[in-house]
Protein backbone atom coordinates (compact mmCIF):
# COMPACT_ATOMS: atom_id res chain seq x y z
CA UNK A 1 0.00 0.00 0.00
CA UNK A 2 0.90 3.63 -0.11
CA UNK A 3 2.23 3.56 3.40
CA UNK A 4 5.96 3.90 2.98
CA UNK A 5 5.92 7.25 1.27
CA UNK A 6 8.01 9.80 3.11
CA UNK A 7 6.46 12.75 4.89
CA UNK A 8 3.70 14.21 2.88
CA UNK A 9 1.65 17.16 3.90
CA UNK A 10 -1.15 16.37 6.30
CA UNK A 11 -3.70 17.43 3.72
CA UNK A 12 -2.28 15.06 1.12
CA UNK A 13 -2.18 12.23 3.64
CA UNK A 14 -5.76 12.88 4.64
CA UNK A 15 -6.77 12.98 0.99
CA UNK A 16 -5.06 9.66 0.37
CA UNK A 17 -6.68 8.13 3.42
CA UNK A 18 -10.12 9.23 2.29
CA UNK A 19 -9.52 7.91 -1.21
CA UNK A 20 -8.32 4.57 0.16
CA UNK A 21 -11.30 4.36 2.47
CA UNK A 22 -13.72 5.23 -0.33
CA UNK A 23 -12.15 2.64 -2.59
CA UNK A 24 -12.55 -0.04 0.07
CA UNK A 25 -16.04 0.99 1.04
CA UNK A 26 -17.21 0.95 -2.58
CA UNK A 27 -15.55 -2.34 -3.50
CA UNK A 28 -16.70 -4.14 -0.38
CA UNK A 29 -20.07 -2.42 -0.58
CA UNK A 30 -20.60 -3.82 -4.04
CA UNK A 31 -19.80 -7.29 -2.76
CA UNK A 32 -22.14 -6.70 0.17
CA UNK A 33 -25.03 -5.69 -2.07
CA UNK A 34 -24.53 -8.86 -4.10
CA UNK A 35 -24.47 -11.11 -1.06
CA UNK A 36 -27.35 -9.22 0.53
CA UNK A 37 -29.58 -9.73 -2.49
CA UNK A 38 -28.57 -13.37 -2.64
CA UNK A 39 -29.45 -13.67 1.06
CA UNK A 40 -32.93 -12.27 0.38
CA UNK A 41 -33.47 -14.84 -2.36
CA UNK A 42 -32.14 -17.59 -0.12
CA UNK A 43 -35.00 -16.87 2.29
CA UNK A 44 -37.43 -18.28 -0.27
CA UNK A 45 -37.40 -21.90 0.75
CA UNK A 46 -38.65 -24.12 -2.07
CA UNK A 47 -41.93 -25.83 -1.10
CA UNK A 48 -40.46 -29.33 -1.41
CA UNK A 49 -37.72 -28.67 1.15
CA UNK A 50 -39.04 -29.19 4.65
CA UNK A 51 -37.24 -28.00 7.78
CA UNK A 52 -36.77 -30.36 10.75
CA UNK A 53 -39.34 -30.31 13.58
CA UNK A 54 -39.42 -27.18 15.70
CA UNK A 55 -37.71 -25.03 13.08
CA UNK A 56 -38.32 -21.32 13.58
CA UNK A 57 -40.04 -19.37 10.84
CA UNK A 58 -37.78 -19.33 7.79
CA UNK A 59 -36.65 -15.72 8.22
CA UNK A 60 -35.72 -16.28 11.86
CA UNK A 61 -34.31 -19.71 11.15
CA UNK A 62 -31.71 -18.32 8.76
CA UNK A 63 -30.47 -15.97 11.46
CA UNK A 64 -30.40 -18.68 14.09
CA UNK A 65 -29.08 -21.82 12.38
CA UNK A 66 -25.28 -21.89 12.38
CA UNK A 67 -25.12 -24.81 9.95
CA UNK A 68 -23.35 -27.23 12.31
CA UNK A 69 -25.29 -30.29 11.17
CA UNK A 70 -25.80 -31.78 14.63
CA UNK A 71 -29.49 -32.31 13.84
CA UNK A 72 -28.40 -34.27 10.77
CA UNK A 73 -26.09 -36.38 12.91
CA UNK A 74 -28.61 -37.09 15.64
CA UNK A 75 -31.46 -38.03 13.30
CA UNK A 76 -31.65 -41.82 13.77
CA UNK A 77 -33.21 -42.30 10.35
CA UNK A 78 -30.74 -40.13 8.43
CA UNK A 79 -33.48 -38.19 6.70
CA UNK A 80 -31.90 -34.76 7.10
CA UNK A 81 -29.18 -33.31 4.92
CA UNK A 82 -27.33 -29.99 4.79
CA UNK A 83 -27.88 -27.96 1.64
CA UNK A 84 -24.88 -27.61 -0.65
CA UNK A 85 -24.43 -24.33 -2.54
CA UNK A 86 -25.95 -25.53 -5.81
CA UNK A 87 -29.21 -26.52 -4.10
CA UNK A 88 -32.06 -23.99 -3.88
CA UNK A 89 -31.96 -24.08 -0.06
CA UNK A 90 -29.80 -21.70 2.03
CA UNK A 91 -26.27 -23.16 2.01
CA UNK A 92 -25.52 -25.45 4.93
CA UNK A 93 -29.00 -25.50 6.43
CA UNK A 94 -30.81 -28.78 7.21
CA UNK A 95 -33.89 -29.96 5.33
CA UNK A 96 -35.60 -33.08 4.09
CA UNK A 97 -37.76 -33.96 1.10
CA UNK A 98 -40.85 -35.84 2.19
CA UNK A 99 -41.31 -37.79 -1.03
CA UNK A 100 -37.81 -39.22 -0.58
CA UNK A 101 -37.69 -39.75 3.19
CA UNK A 102 -40.35 -38.41 5.54
CA UNK A 103 -39.86 -37.55 9.19
CA UNK A 104 -40.35 -40.57 11.45
CA UNK A 105 -41.53 -38.37 14.31
CA UNK A 106 -39.32 -39.73 17.11
CA UNK A 107 -40.95 -39.17 20.47
CA UNK A 108 -37.77 -37.79 22.05
CA UNK A 109 -37.09 -35.46 19.04
CA UNK A 110 -33.28 -35.91 19.02
CA UNK A 111 -32.75 -33.37 16.22
CA UNK A 112 -34.24 -30.60 18.32
CA UNK A 113 -32.27 -31.67 21.40
CA UNK A 114 -29.03 -31.59 19.38
CA UNK A 115 -29.54 -28.04 18.10
CA UNK A 116 -27.15 -25.73 19.97
CA UNK A 117 -28.78 -22.48 18.92
CA UNK A 118 -32.50 -23.04 19.25
CA UNK A 119 -33.00 -22.67 15.50
CA UNK A 120 -34.96 -25.83 16.21
CA UNK A 121 -37.06 -24.55 19.09
CA UNK A 122 -36.38 -26.46 22.30
CA UNK A 123 -39.88 -25.52 23.49
CA UNK A 124 -41.13 -28.31 21.22
CA UNK A 125 -41.27 -31.38 23.44
CA UNK A 126 -44.27 -33.19 21.92
CA UNK A 127 -43.55 -34.25 18.36
CA UNK A 128 -47.31 -34.38 17.67
CA UNK A 129 -47.37 -30.62 18.14
CA UNK A 130 -44.72 -29.99 15.50
CA UNK A 131 -45.62 -28.06 12.37
CA UNK A 132 -43.00 -28.98 9.79
CA UNK A 133 -45.53 -28.30 7.07
CA UNK A 134 -49.09 -29.10 6.18
CA UNK A 135 -50.31 -31.94 3.99
CA UNK A 136 -52.58 -30.88 1.14
CA UNK A 137 -54.43 -33.18 -1.20
CA UNK A 138 -53.45 -31.11 -4.19
CA UNK A 139 -54.56 -33.32 -7.05
CA UNK A 140 -58.23 -34.22 -6.69
CA UNK A 141 -58.34 -35.41 -10.29
CA UNK A 142 -55.89 -38.24 -9.82
CA UNK A 143 -56.30 -39.14 -6.15
CA UNK A 144 -57.61 -42.71 -6.20
CA UNK A 145 -60.04 -42.10 -3.37
CA UNK A 146 -61.53 -39.18 -5.28
CA UNK A 147 -62.02 -41.56 -8.18
CA UNK A 148 -64.04 -43.81 -5.92
CA UNK A 149 -61.40 -46.42 -5.11
CA UNK A 150 -60.47 -47.40 -1.60
CA UNK A 151 -56.76 -46.58 -1.71
CA UNK A 152 -56.78 -44.95 1.74
CA UNK A 153 -52.98 -45.25 1.96
CA UNK A 154 -52.35 -41.67 3.10
CA UNK A 155 -54.98 -42.12 5.76
CA UNK A 156 -53.51 -45.44 6.92
CA UNK A 157 -49.88 -44.32 7.15
CA UNK A 158 -50.64 -41.07 8.96
CA UNK A 159 -49.01 -41.18 12.43
CA UNK A 160 -51.90 -39.07 13.70
CA UNK A 161 -54.54 -41.24 12.00
CA UNK A 162 -58.17 -40.08 12.32
CA UNK A 163 -57.03 -36.73 13.60
CA UNK A 164 -54.73 -35.31 10.93
CA UNK A 165 -56.38 -37.21 8.09
CA UNK A 166 -59.96 -38.47 8.18
CA UNK A 167 -62.02 -40.12 5.46
CA UNK A 168 -65.18 -38.13 4.77
CA UNK A 169 -67.98 -40.02 3.12
CA UNK A 170 -69.70 -38.55 0.06
CA UNK A 171 -72.01 -39.86 -2.61
CA UNK A 172 -70.22 -41.13 -5.71
CA UNK A 173 -72.08 -39.13 -8.34
CA UNK A 174 -70.52 -41.18 -11.16
CA UNK A 175 -72.12 -44.47 -10.13
CA UNK A 176 -74.92 -42.89 -8.16
CA UNK A 177 -74.90 -45.71 -5.63
CA UNK A 178 -71.38 -45.92 -4.19
CA UNK A 179 -69.48 -43.82 -1.74
CA UNK A 180 -66.40 -41.68 -2.04
CA UNK A 181 -64.08 -41.67 0.96
CA UNK A 182 -62.41 -38.33 0.71
CA UNK A 183 -59.09 -38.04 2.58
CA UNK A 184 -59.40 -34.78 4.46
CA UNK A 185 -56.46 -33.12 6.24
CA UNK A 186 -57.10 -31.28 9.47
CA UNK A 187 -54.49 -28.59 9.90
CA UNK A 188 -54.64 -28.44 13.69
CA UNK A 189 -53.46 -32.08 13.94
CA UNK A 190 -51.20 -32.44 10.89
CA UNK A 191 -47.48 -32.28 11.80
CA UNK A 192 -46.19 -32.12 8.23
CA UNK A 193 -44.11 -35.27 8.66
CA UNK A 194 -44.69 -36.20 5.02
CA UNK A 195 -45.52 -39.89 5.49
CA UNK A 196 -48.67 -39.46 3.37
CA UNK A 197 -46.72 -37.85 0.54
CA UNK A 198 -44.08 -40.56 0.68
CA UNK A 199 -46.69 -43.33 0.65
CA UNK A 200 -48.99 -42.00 -2.09
CA UNK A 201 -48.95 -44.77 -4.74
CA UNK A 202 -49.28 -42.43 -7.72
CA UNK A 203 -46.29 -41.73 -9.95
CA UNK A 204 -46.39 -38.19 -8.59
CA UNK A 205 -47.97 -37.84 -5.18
CA UNK A 206 -51.50 -36.42 -5.12
CA UNK A 207 -51.04 -35.40 -1.49
CA UNK A 208 -48.06 -33.20 -0.72
CA UNK A 209 -46.61 -31.46 2.28
CA UNK A 210 -46.24 -27.71 1.84
CA UNK A 211 -45.02 -24.99 4.15
CA UNK A 212 -47.94 -24.03 6.38
CA UNK A 213 -48.09 -20.45 5.15
CA UNK A 214 -48.31 -21.71 1.58
CA UNK A 215 -50.92 -24.37 2.30
CA UNK A 216 -53.25 -22.57 4.65
CA UNK A 217 -55.86 -19.95 3.88
CA UNK A 218 -56.94 -17.38 6.41
CA UNK A 219 -60.18 -15.40 6.66
CA UNK A 220 -60.13 -11.67 7.28
CA UNK A 221 -59.60 -10.71 10.91
CA UNK A 222 -63.07 -9.19 11.08
CA UNK A 223 -64.78 -12.28 9.68
CA UNK A 224 -67.17 -14.13 12.02
CA UNK A 225 -69.05 -17.37 11.46
CA UNK A 226 -72.64 -16.73 12.44
CA UNK A 227 -73.40 -20.18 13.76
CA UNK A 228 -70.24 -20.21 15.89
CA UNK A 229 -71.06 -16.85 17.41
CA UNK A 230 -74.62 -17.98 17.97
CA UNK A 231 -73.41 -21.03 19.85
CA UNK A 232 -71.04 -18.94 21.92
CA UNK A 233 -73.79 -16.51 22.81
CA UNK A 234 -76.25 -19.28 23.55
CA UNK A 235 -78.75 -17.91 21.07
CA UNK A 236 -79.34 -15.64 18.19
CA UNK A 237 -77.61 -12.30 18.47
CA UNK A 238 -79.96 -10.21 16.35
CA UNK A 239 -83.49 -11.66 16.23
CA UNK A 240 -85.18 -14.66 17.77
CA UNK A 241 -84.96 -17.89 15.80
CA UNK A 242 -88.44 -18.63 14.57
CA UNK A 243 -89.49 -22.04 13.25
CA UNK A 244 -89.93 -22.03 9.53
CA UNK A 245 -93.53 -21.89 8.36
CA UNK A 246 -94.39 -24.19 5.50
CA UNK A 247 -97.31 -23.45 3.28
CA UNK A 248 -98.36 -27.03 2.45
CA UNK A 249 -101.48 -28.74 1.14
CA UNK A 250 -103.58 -30.28 3.81
CA UNK A 251 -102.42 -33.65 5.01
CA UNK A 252 -98.85 -33.07 3.99
CA UNK A 253 -95.89 -32.24 6.08
CA UNK A 254 -92.23 -31.51 5.55
CA UNK A 255 -89.34 -32.97 7.44
CA UNK A 256 -85.78 -31.80 7.09
CA UNK A 257 -83.77 -34.40 5.21
CA UNK A 258 -86.82 -36.43 4.20
CA UNK A 259 -88.75 -33.98 2.13
CA UNK A 260 -92.48 -33.90 1.62
CA UNK A 261 -94.43 -36.56 3.54
CA UNK A 262 -98.04 -37.39 3.79
CA UNK A 263 -99.91 -37.84 7.01
CA UNK A 264 -100.15 -35.85 10.11
CA UNK A 265 -97.07 -34.87 11.98
CA UNK A 266 -96.17 -37.14 14.90
CA UNK A 267 -96.95 -35.67 18.27
CA UNK A 268 -94.59 -32.76 18.57
CA UNK A 269 -91.79 -33.05 21.05
CA UNK A 270 -92.17 -30.64 23.91
CA UNK A 271 -91.20 -27.43 22.22
CA UNK A 272 -88.01 -25.97 23.46
CA UNK A 273 -88.42 -22.36 24.47
CA UNK A 274 -87.79 -20.15 21.49
CA UNK A 275 -84.27 -18.82 21.36
CA UNK A 276 -84.43 -15.23 22.34
CA UNK A 277 -81.61 -12.76 21.95
CA UNK A 278 -80.16 -12.06 25.30
CA UNK A 279 -80.58 -8.40 24.77
CA UNK A 280 -84.32 -8.90 24.52
CA UNK A 281 -84.78 -11.43 27.29
CA UNK A 282 -85.38 -8.69 29.81
CA UNK A 283 -88.55 -7.63 28.01
CA UNK A 284 -91.55 -9.89 27.45
CA UNK A 285 -91.36 -11.72 24.19
Amino acid at each position, binding site marked *: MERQQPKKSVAAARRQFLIDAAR*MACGVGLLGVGIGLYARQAKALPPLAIRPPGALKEGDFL*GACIRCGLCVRDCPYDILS*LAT*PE*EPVATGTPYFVARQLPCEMCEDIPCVKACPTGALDHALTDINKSKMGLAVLVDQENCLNFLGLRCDICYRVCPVIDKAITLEQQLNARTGKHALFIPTVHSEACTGCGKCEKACPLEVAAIKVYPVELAKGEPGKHYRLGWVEQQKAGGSLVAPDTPHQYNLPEGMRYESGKGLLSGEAPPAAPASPPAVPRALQGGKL
Partner: protein
Amino acid sequence: MSIGHDAIAAKGWLRAHRWLLARRVSQLGILALFLLGPLAGVWIVKGNLSYSLTLGVLPLTDPLVQLQSLLARHLPETKAIVGAAIVLAFYLVVGGRVFCSWVCPMNLVTDAAAWLRERLGIRGGAHASREARYWILAMTLVLAALTGSLAWELVNPVSMLHRGLIFGLGAVWLVILAIFLFDLFVMKDGWCGHFCPVGAFYGLLGKVSLLRTAAVRRSACNDCMDCFAVCPEPQVIRPALKGVEGAGPVILAGACSNCGRCIDVCAKDVFAYGTRFGGRVENVSASARTASTCK
Protein backbone atom coordinates in the same frame (compact mmCIF):
# COMPACT_ATOMS: atom_id res chain seq x y z
CA MET B 1 18.52 -20.73 -4.70
CA SER B 2 15.29 -22.02 -3.24
CA ILE B 3 13.83 -20.68 0.00
CA GLY B 4 15.10 -22.50 3.05
CA HIS B 5 18.13 -24.01 1.35
CA ASP B 6 20.42 -22.47 3.97
CA ALA B 7 18.24 -23.69 6.79
CA ILE B 8 18.24 -27.26 5.46
CA ALA B 9 22.02 -27.12 5.14
CA ALA B 10 22.41 -25.73 8.64
CA LYS B 11 19.75 -27.66 10.55
CA GLY B 12 18.86 -30.68 8.43
CA TRP B 13 15.62 -31.20 6.46
CA LEU B 14 13.56 -32.35 9.39
CA ARG B 15 14.36 -29.42 11.69
CA ALA B 16 13.93 -27.03 8.78
CA HIS B 17 10.38 -28.36 8.31
CA ARG B 18 9.48 -29.01 11.92
CA TRP B 19 6.62 -26.55 12.32
CA LEU B 20 5.36 -27.10 8.81
CA LEU B 21 5.01 -30.80 9.53
CA ALA B 22 3.42 -30.07 12.90
CA ARG B 23 0.92 -27.80 11.19
CA ARG B 24 0.00 -30.39 8.61
CA VAL B 25 -0.44 -33.00 11.34
CA SER B 26 -2.67 -30.55 13.20
CA GLN B 27 -4.75 -29.60 10.13
CA LEU B 28 -5.18 -33.15 8.89
CA GLY B 29 -5.58 -34.54 12.40
CA ILE B 30 -8.44 -32.19 13.20
CA LEU B 31 -10.05 -32.99 9.87
CA ALA B 32 -9.59 -36.71 10.58
CA LEU B 33 -11.28 -36.36 13.97
CA PHE B 34 -14.28 -34.78 12.28
CA LEU B 35 -14.30 -37.43 9.54
CA LEU B 36 -13.91 -40.38 11.91
CA GLY B 37 -17.60 -40.20 12.73
CA PRO B 38 -19.17 -40.18 9.28
CA LEU B 39 -16.54 -42.47 7.70
CA ALA B 40 -15.78 -44.96 10.46
CA GLY B 41 -18.64 -44.50 12.90
CA VAL B 42 -16.31 -43.41 15.68
CA TRP B 43 -18.00 -40.32 17.09
CA ILE B 44 -15.34 -38.36 18.90
CA VAL B 45 -16.34 -35.08 17.32
CA LYS B 46 -19.76 -34.29 15.88
CA GLY B 47 -20.56 -31.27 13.74
CA ASN B 48 -18.19 -28.98 11.91
CA LEU B 49 -16.07 -25.89 12.57
CA SER B 50 -19.19 -23.73 12.94
CA TYR B 51 -20.18 -25.75 15.97
CA SER B 52 -19.02 -29.10 17.22
CA LEU B 53 -19.58 -31.33 20.19
CA THR B 54 -16.57 -33.36 21.32
CA LEU B 55 -17.16 -36.59 23.23
CA GLY B 56 -20.69 -35.43 23.85
CA VAL B 57 -19.61 -32.80 26.35
CA LEU B 58 -17.28 -30.14 24.94
CA PRO B 59 -19.07 -27.54 22.80
CA LEU B 60 -16.96 -25.44 20.43
CA THR B 61 -18.57 -22.64 18.46
CA ASP B 62 -17.13 -20.45 15.73
CA PRO B 63 -17.24 -17.08 17.48
CA LEU B 64 -17.65 -15.14 14.22
CA VAL B 65 -20.65 -17.22 13.14
CA GLN B 66 -22.10 -16.82 16.61
CA LEU B 67 -21.52 -13.07 16.49
CA GLN B 68 -23.33 -12.86 13.16
CA SER B 69 -26.23 -14.82 14.63
CA LEU B 70 -26.41 -12.45 17.61
CA LEU B 71 -26.40 -9.49 15.23
CA ALA B 72 -29.23 -11.18 13.34
CA ARG B 73 -31.05 -10.87 16.69
CA HIS B 74 -31.16 -14.50 17.71
CA LEU B 75 -30.16 -15.56 21.19
CA PRO B 76 -28.85 -19.15 21.10
CA GLU B 77 -28.95 -21.93 23.67
CA THR B 78 -26.33 -21.68 26.40
CA LYS B 79 -24.07 -24.36 24.93
CA ALA B 80 -23.44 -22.33 21.78
CA ILE B 81 -22.40 -19.32 23.87
CA VAL B 82 -20.20 -21.48 26.11
CA GLY B 83 -18.62 -22.99 22.99
CA ALA B 84 -17.88 -19.56 21.56
CA ALA B 85 -16.35 -18.44 24.87
CA ILE B 86 -14.07 -21.49 24.96
CA VAL B 87 -12.88 -20.92 21.41
CA LEU B 88 -12.32 -17.20 22.04
CA ALA B 89 -10.33 -17.94 25.18
CA PHE B 90 -8.27 -20.57 23.38
CA TYR B 91 -7.26 -18.29 20.53
CA LEU B 92 -6.63 -15.39 22.87
CA VAL B 93 -3.95 -17.63 24.42
CA VAL B 94 -2.40 -19.39 21.44
CA GLY B 95 -2.71 -16.54 18.94
CA GLY B 96 -5.74 -15.47 16.93
CA ARG B 97 -4.78 -16.61 13.47
CA VAL B 98 -3.50 -19.92 14.77
CA PHE B 99 -6.93 -20.94 13.52
CA CYS B 100 -5.86 -20.03 10.00
CA SER B 101 -2.57 -21.87 9.92
CA TRP B 102 -3.22 -24.80 12.23
CA VAL B 103 -6.92 -25.61 11.87
CA CYS B 104 -8.58 -24.11 8.80
CA PRO B 105 -8.89 -26.56 5.88
CA MET B 106 -8.71 -23.67 3.42
CA ASN B 107 -5.07 -23.18 4.40
CA LEU B 108 -4.18 -26.50 2.79
CA VAL B 109 -5.67 -25.23 -0.46
CA THR B 110 -4.07 -21.80 -0.44
CA ASP B 111 -0.72 -23.17 0.76
CA ALA B 112 -0.80 -25.58 -2.16
CA ALA B 113 -1.50 -22.67 -4.50
CA ALA B 114 1.35 -20.65 -3.00
CA TRP B 115 3.71 -23.61 -3.26
CA LEU B 116 2.81 -24.23 -6.90
CA ARG B 117 3.07 -20.52 -7.65
CA GLU B 118 6.63 -20.59 -6.31
CA ARG B 119 7.48 -23.78 -8.22
CA LEU B 120 6.10 -22.42 -11.48
CA GLY B 121 7.87 -19.11 -10.92
CA ILE B 122 4.67 -17.09 -11.31
CA ARG B 123 5.36 -13.52 -10.29
CA GLY B 124 3.22 -10.44 -9.97
CA GLY B 125 -0.50 -10.31 -10.56
CA ALA B 126 -3.31 -8.24 -9.18
CA HIS B 127 -2.85 -6.14 -6.08
CA ALA B 128 -5.27 -5.42 -3.30
CA SER B 129 -4.94 -3.95 0.12
CA ARG B 130 -4.47 -6.40 2.96
CA GLU B 131 -6.90 -4.18 4.84
CA ALA B 132 -9.68 -5.41 2.55
CA ARG B 133 -10.38 -8.37 4.85
CA TYR B 134 -11.27 -6.06 7.75
CA TRP B 135 -13.70 -4.21 5.52
CA ILE B 136 -15.20 -7.49 4.39
CA LEU B 137 -15.43 -8.56 8.02
CA ALA B 138 -17.34 -5.37 8.81
CA MET B 139 -19.54 -6.03 5.78
CA THR B 140 -20.42 -9.55 6.99
CA LEU B 141 -21.48 -8.15 10.36
CA VAL B 142 -23.49 -5.31 8.82
CA LEU B 143 -25.18 -7.79 6.46
CA ALA B 144 -26.12 -10.05 9.36
CA ALA B 145 -27.73 -7.12 11.14
CA LEU B 146 -29.49 -5.80 8.02
CA THR B 147 -30.78 -9.08 6.61
CA GLY B 148 -31.41 -10.77 9.95
CA SER B 149 -29.75 -13.86 8.55
CA LEU B 150 -26.27 -15.32 8.33
CA ALA B 151 -25.80 -13.88 4.85
CA TRP B 152 -22.04 -14.43 4.77
CA GLU B 153 -22.47 -18.10 5.62
CA LEU B 154 -24.29 -18.56 2.32
CA VAL B 155 -21.02 -17.95 0.51
CA ASN B 156 -18.27 -18.40 3.12
CA PRO B 157 -15.73 -20.73 1.45
CA VAL B 158 -14.13 -21.62 4.80
CA SER B 159 -17.22 -23.10 6.43
CA MET B 160 -18.40 -24.38 3.06
CA LEU B 161 -15.24 -26.44 2.57
CA HIS B 162 -15.12 -27.87 6.06
CA ARG B 163 -18.83 -28.66 6.09
CA GLY B 164 -18.57 -30.04 2.57
CA LEU B 165 -15.75 -32.43 3.46
CA ILE B 166 -17.80 -33.84 6.31
CA PHE B 167 -21.40 -33.60 5.09
CA GLY B 168 -20.99 -33.76 1.31
CA LEU B 169 -19.26 -31.37 -1.06
CA GLY B 170 -21.82 -30.73 -3.77
CA ALA B 171 -20.59 -27.82 -5.87
CA VAL B 172 -18.28 -26.58 -3.10
CA TRP B 173 -15.30 -27.96 -5.02
CA LEU B 174 -15.98 -25.34 -7.68
CA VAL B 175 -15.66 -22.51 -5.17
CA ILE B 176 -12.50 -24.02 -3.75
CA LEU B 177 -11.00 -24.56 -7.18
CA ALA B 178 -11.77 -20.94 -8.05
CA ILE B 179 -9.93 -19.73 -4.95
CA PHE B 180 -7.00 -22.06 -5.65
CA LEU B 181 -6.67 -20.74 -9.20
CA PHE B 182 -7.12 -17.15 -8.00
CA ASP B 183 -4.27 -17.59 -5.51
CA LEU B 184 -2.16 -19.35 -8.11
CA PHE B 185 -2.54 -17.01 -11.06
CA VAL B 186 -4.16 -13.79 -9.94
CA MET B 187 -2.88 -12.84 -6.51
CA LYS B 188 -0.23 -14.23 -4.19
CA ASP B 189 -1.82 -15.19 -0.87
CA GLY B 190 -4.98 -13.66 -2.29
CA TRP B 191 -7.70 -15.28 -0.25
CA CYS B 192 -6.10 -15.81 3.17
CA GLY B 193 -3.88 -12.76 3.04
CA HIS B 194 -6.28 -10.19 1.66
CA PHE B 195 -9.95 -11.07 1.72
CA CYS B 196 -10.95 -13.75 4.22
CA PRO B 197 -13.07 -12.14 6.97
CA VAL B 198 -12.74 -15.23 9.16
CA GLY B 199 -8.99 -14.71 9.21
CA ALA B 200 -9.53 -10.99 9.79
CA PHE B 201 -11.67 -11.77 12.81
CA TYR B 202 -9.02 -14.04 14.28
CA GLY B 203 -6.43 -11.42 13.32
CA LEU B 204 -8.20 -8.96 15.61
CA LEU B 205 -7.92 -11.51 18.43
CA GLY B 206 -4.25 -11.88 17.51
CA LYS B 207 -3.64 -8.23 18.29
CA VAL B 208 -4.01 -9.07 21.97
CA SER B 209 -3.27 -12.80 22.09
CA LEU B 210 -0.62 -14.19 24.38
CA LEU B 211 1.47 -16.57 22.26
CA ARG B 212 3.42 -14.75 19.55
CA THR B 213 6.31 -15.37 17.21
CA ALA B 214 9.34 -13.29 18.02
CA ALA B 215 12.67 -12.46 16.38
CA VAL B 216 14.41 -13.21 19.65
CA ARG B 217 17.89 -13.51 18.14
CA ARG B 218 17.49 -10.78 15.59
CA SER B 219 21.12 -9.70 16.04
CA ALA B 220 22.04 -13.00 14.36
CA CYS B 221 20.09 -12.14 11.19
CA ASN B 222 22.21 -12.30 8.06
CA ASP B 223 19.61 -10.68 5.77
CA CYS B 224 19.11 -13.78 3.63
CA MET B 225 15.45 -12.69 3.23
CA ASP B 226 14.15 -16.27 3.36
CA CYS B 227 11.70 -15.40 6.13
CA PHE B 228 10.22 -12.60 4.03
CA ALA B 229 9.98 -14.92 1.05
CA VAL B 230 8.27 -17.72 2.95
CA CYS B 231 5.95 -15.64 5.12
CA PRO B 232 2.37 -15.31 3.84
CA GLU B 233 2.12 -11.99 5.68
CA PRO B 234 5.66 -10.61 5.15
CA GLN B 235 4.71 -7.11 6.25
CA VAL B 236 4.53 -8.29 9.88
CA ILE B 237 8.18 -9.32 10.08
CA ARG B 238 10.06 -6.12 9.44
CA PRO B 239 9.24 -4.15 12.61
CA ALA B 240 10.19 -7.02 14.88
CA LEU B 241 13.21 -8.20 12.92
CA LYS B 242 14.66 -4.82 12.13
CA GLY B 243 13.54 -2.98 15.26
CA VAL B 244 11.87 -0.29 13.17
CA GLU B 245 11.23 2.79 15.30
CA GLY B 246 12.48 0.98 18.35
CA ALA B 247 10.12 -2.00 18.01
CA GLY B 248 10.72 -5.01 20.22
CA PRO B 249 11.43 -8.46 18.80
CA VAL B 250 7.89 -9.77 19.26
CA ILE B 251 5.71 -9.84 16.14
CA LEU B 252 2.65 -8.05 17.47
CA ALA B 253 0.71 -7.65 14.23
CA GLY B 254 -2.57 -9.55 14.31
CA ALA B 255 -2.06 -10.77 10.76
CA CYS B 256 0.77 -13.08 11.90
CA SER B 257 -0.73 -16.56 12.10
CA ASN B 258 1.98 -18.16 14.25
CA CYS B 259 2.52 -20.65 11.45
CA GLY B 260 6.21 -20.96 12.31
CA ARG B 261 7.43 -20.93 8.71
CA CYS B 262 9.95 -18.19 9.57
CA ILE B 263 11.23 -20.31 12.45
CA ASP B 264 11.72 -23.30 10.14
CA VAL B 265 13.28 -21.41 7.29
CA CYS B 266 15.84 -19.41 9.26
CA ALA B 267 19.33 -20.91 9.25
CA LYS B 268 20.33 -18.65 12.12
CA ASP B 269 17.42 -19.56 14.40
CA VAL B 270 16.45 -15.94 14.74
CA PHE B 271 12.75 -16.68 15.36
CA ALA B 272 11.07 -18.56 18.16
CA TYR B 273 7.64 -18.77 19.78
CA GLY B 274 7.22 -16.77 22.93
CA THR B 275 4.71 -14.59 24.70
CA ARG B 276 3.83 -11.09 23.66
CA PHE B 277 5.55 -9.83 26.78
CA GLY B 278 8.76 -11.77 26.17
CA GLY B 279 11.92 -9.87 25.24
CA ARG B 280 10.17 -6.61 24.85
CA VAL B 281 12.81 -4.11 25.74
CA GLU B 282 11.72 -0.96 23.99
CA ASN B 283 8.83 1.19 25.09
CA VAL B 284 5.41 -0.31 24.56
CA SER B 285 3.60 2.41 22.68
CA ALA B 286 6.28 2.69 20.02
CA SER B 287 6.27 -1.03 19.27
CA ALA B 288 2.49 -1.28 19.33
CA ARG B 289 2.17 1.63 16.92
CA THR B 290 4.64 0.19 14.47
CA ALA B 291 3.01 -3.17 14.56
CA SER B 292 -0.41 -1.83 13.75
CA THR B 293 0.60 0.62 11.05
CA CYS B 294 2.69 -1.92 9.20
CA LYS B 295 -0.01 -4.42 8.49
